[in-house]
């Protein structure tokens, strides 16, 4: 059995850990709220953009664009969104596992990756995969600008035939407890389902519909990437909050157990001392 002093030392170190995990949990909770607000704030824009695009697509079938056309998938681009920091439970490992599975399933095709977050970059750098882009040390500051940057480059590569499809893998935020690794196909854009009752609005266009469609689609891609980023950030903080909450309650349990051990050791010590005193007294008689 450990000595009293050793146990005391362990208790105080566990208490320190508990303080840290508790603080991290609070920070994540605050960041999660902000991330959720950002996701909510992006919704009107996303919905309106989708509606406009749908309206435009409903105008006529003669509107065509390479972004809307399926073709043989030989070269695939996958964007993987992880976090820069660890200590968030299985958040990153489940995403990386999903990415590995995606690559395995498409061993016939060439998959190149765009990595967001240091966790993904650390993992895939040591492996035999093509990495097109890396965005690390952002610490959750994922901006619409970055989404636009990625979207523009991918759009170009799609148009000049370097890539035939574009997928995004991110953790969809269900709740602070549940984040689901989700794979969305961004390019080619699956033709938006057209609702029956919504009669197409007859617009006056400026400039021509074809030009408008092209720039709308570009925005749409940016928006999809941006939305995945927001989800990913919210998920990260949710995962970390849950992980740190578990760690804190584990620390509490551990402190309880150690305190019990400590009291037992103390009691054993006192009993032993008493015994020694009695024994000494007896022997002196």
């Amino acid at each position, binding site marked *: 059995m450990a000595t009293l002093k050793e146990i005391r030392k362990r208790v105080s170190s566990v208490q320190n850990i508990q303080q840290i995990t508790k603080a991290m949990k609070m920070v994540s909770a605050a960041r999660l709220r902000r991330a959720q607000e*950002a996701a909510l*704030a*992006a919704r*009107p*824009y*996303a919905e*309106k*953009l989708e509606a*406009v695009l749908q*309206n*435009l697509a409903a105008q006529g079938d003669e509107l065509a664009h390479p972004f809307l056309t399926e073709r043989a998938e030989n070269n695939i681009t996958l964007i993987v969104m992880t976090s820069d920091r660890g200590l968030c439970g299985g958040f990153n490992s489940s995403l990386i596992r999903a990415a590995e599975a995606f690559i395995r399933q498409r061993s016939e095709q060439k998959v190149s990756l765009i990595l967001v977050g240091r966790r993904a970059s650390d993992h895939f750098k040591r492996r035999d995969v093509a990495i097109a882009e890396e965005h690390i040390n952002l610490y959750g500051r994922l901006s*619409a600008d970055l*989404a*636009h940057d990625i979207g*523009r480059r991918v759009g*170009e590569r799609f148009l000049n035939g370097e890539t035939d499809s574009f997928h995004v893998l991110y953790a969809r935020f269900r709740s602070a407890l549940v984040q689901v690794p989700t794979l969305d196909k961004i390019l080619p854009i699956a033709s938006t389902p057209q609702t029956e009752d919504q009669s197409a*609005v*007859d*617009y*006056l*266009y*400026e*400039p021509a519909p074809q*030009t*408008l469609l092209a*720039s*709308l689609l570009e*925005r749409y891609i*940016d*928006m999809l990437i*941006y939305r995945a980023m927001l989800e990913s950030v919210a998920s990260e903080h949710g995962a970390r909050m849950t992980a740190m909450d578990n760690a804190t309650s584990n620390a509490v349990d551990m402190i309880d157990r150690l305190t019990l051990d400590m009291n037992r050791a103390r009691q054993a010590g006192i009993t032993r001392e008493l015994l020694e005193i009695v024994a000494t007294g007896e022997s002196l008689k």
Partner: protein
Amino acid sequence: MADILHLRLVTPERLLLDEEVDEVTAPGTVGEFGVFPDHATFLSSLQPGRLSYRQNGHTQSLAVSDGFAEVVDNLMTVLCTEAAYANEIDAAQAQEAVREAEAALSALSPTDADFEDAQNTLRLAQVRLDVASNG
């Protein structure tokens, strides 16, 4: 007929404006256009520029990035990646942004893939400066 025009301005970051106005002037890619109540159904792309609207006789201006404007049934929706009022822009910072954008643009040739983006960045920076200094 309803004579009130509703203007709604959204960016990916926020819903910036959702109000009733009398008149809107917006920077379309093929030229500036004005929107009054009962305007025809209309869809246009926007270039970085000054978007102003009149409300109870006062005119307010915003610097907006490239985007889209849609007018349907007296509801005008403006979608753009960035938008800001004059009081949200720091003139010195805007000046700096203009300089940076000019430098970035001069390093590119018109055939570069980034040229158009750089042009838009410069235009946006100039508009932000203009809105910040002239209101």
